[in-house]
């Protein structure tokens, strides 16, 4: 990897080279952000810090998107992911008060940690090994729209979504509605005459939690 890095820097400083170099720069910054963010999410004990490190990762990924000319996605990524999802995380963390520091070292079931690490590595190696295989599937490639043609990325994505992928798009709409309904039902406070017994349990527990 160092060899290619030197070749890049030494080659020339023409505009095309400049673009090339900037692409590398963006990639490297993004990669750094992703890796540090991911490490942070895994290793930090306080869940709030993890959430923040998650945001860093998301920004890294957004950068990578931009580097690969997927501008619309980068924007969506930041708005939806970084904006909504992580905030939701933080909200739930504070709401449930589970922000006690977690003792990473403690592990009730033995064999869990070492095996997990081993499994992570093995999966990584396998994916890399597999990536060198090229004859995955035969058949003609189904092209749903050229990426590099005229017009900017959003217009092409929009066109693809509303023509080729219309049905999945509608299904995702339905999915979101279901999710919302599910959330309302699940988190409805178990009040009401029907299950006062459940209500009592919750009341008594929450007092214990907050104490």
């Amino acid at each position, binding site marked *: 990897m160092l060899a290619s890095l030197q070749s890049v820097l030494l080659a020339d400083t023409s505009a095309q080279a400049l673009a090339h170099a900037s692409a590398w720069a963006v990639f490297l910054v993004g990669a750094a952000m992703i890796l540090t963010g991911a490490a942070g999410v*895994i290793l930090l004990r306080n869940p709030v810090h993890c959430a923040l490190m998650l945001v860093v990762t998301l920004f890294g990924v957004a950068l*990578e998107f931009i580097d690969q000319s997927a501008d619309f996605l980068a924007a969506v990524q930041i708005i939806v*992911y970084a904006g909504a999802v992580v905030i939701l995380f933080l909200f739930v963390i504070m709401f449930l008060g589970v922000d006690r520091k977690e003792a990473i070292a403690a592990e009730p079931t033995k064999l869990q940690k070492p095996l997990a690490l081993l499994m992570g590595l093995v999966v990584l190696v396998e994916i890399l090994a597999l990536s060198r295989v090229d004859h995955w599937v035969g058949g003609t490639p189904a092209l749903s729209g050229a990426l590099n043609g005229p017009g900017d990325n959003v217009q092409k994505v929009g066109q693809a979504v509303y023509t080729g992928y219309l049905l999945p798009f509608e299904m995702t709409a339905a999915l979101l509605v279901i999710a919302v309904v599910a959330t309302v039902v699940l988190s409805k406070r178990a009040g009401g005459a029907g299950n006062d017994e459940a209500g009592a349990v919750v009341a008594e527990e929450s007092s214990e939690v907050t104490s």
Partner: protein
Amino acid sequence: MSVPSAWYLVLAAILFGMGATGLLVRRNVLVMFMCIELMLNAVNLTFVTFARLLNDIGGQVDVLFVLVVAAAEVVVGLAIIVALFRRRAAATADDIHILKG
């Protein structure tokens, strides 16, 4: 002119590995959730890389859908966690093992 896609794939693989390991190691439910998000982002990255590599917009559209699904999943997941934790004073994922065999 741009970075060879192999780098992205390696990066995504590493991110995926870390996410998976995190999921298995951490005991706090929310952190496990975040690790899942990491894995999803790794997948998105791979999608985008291949979209660029194969010059096919479909990859990016898939990322869009992955995003939506991820969002829905987070919403419902957190609702479950809220319902669960309100009912039982559980700090970590291990405290909830009622469904023991």
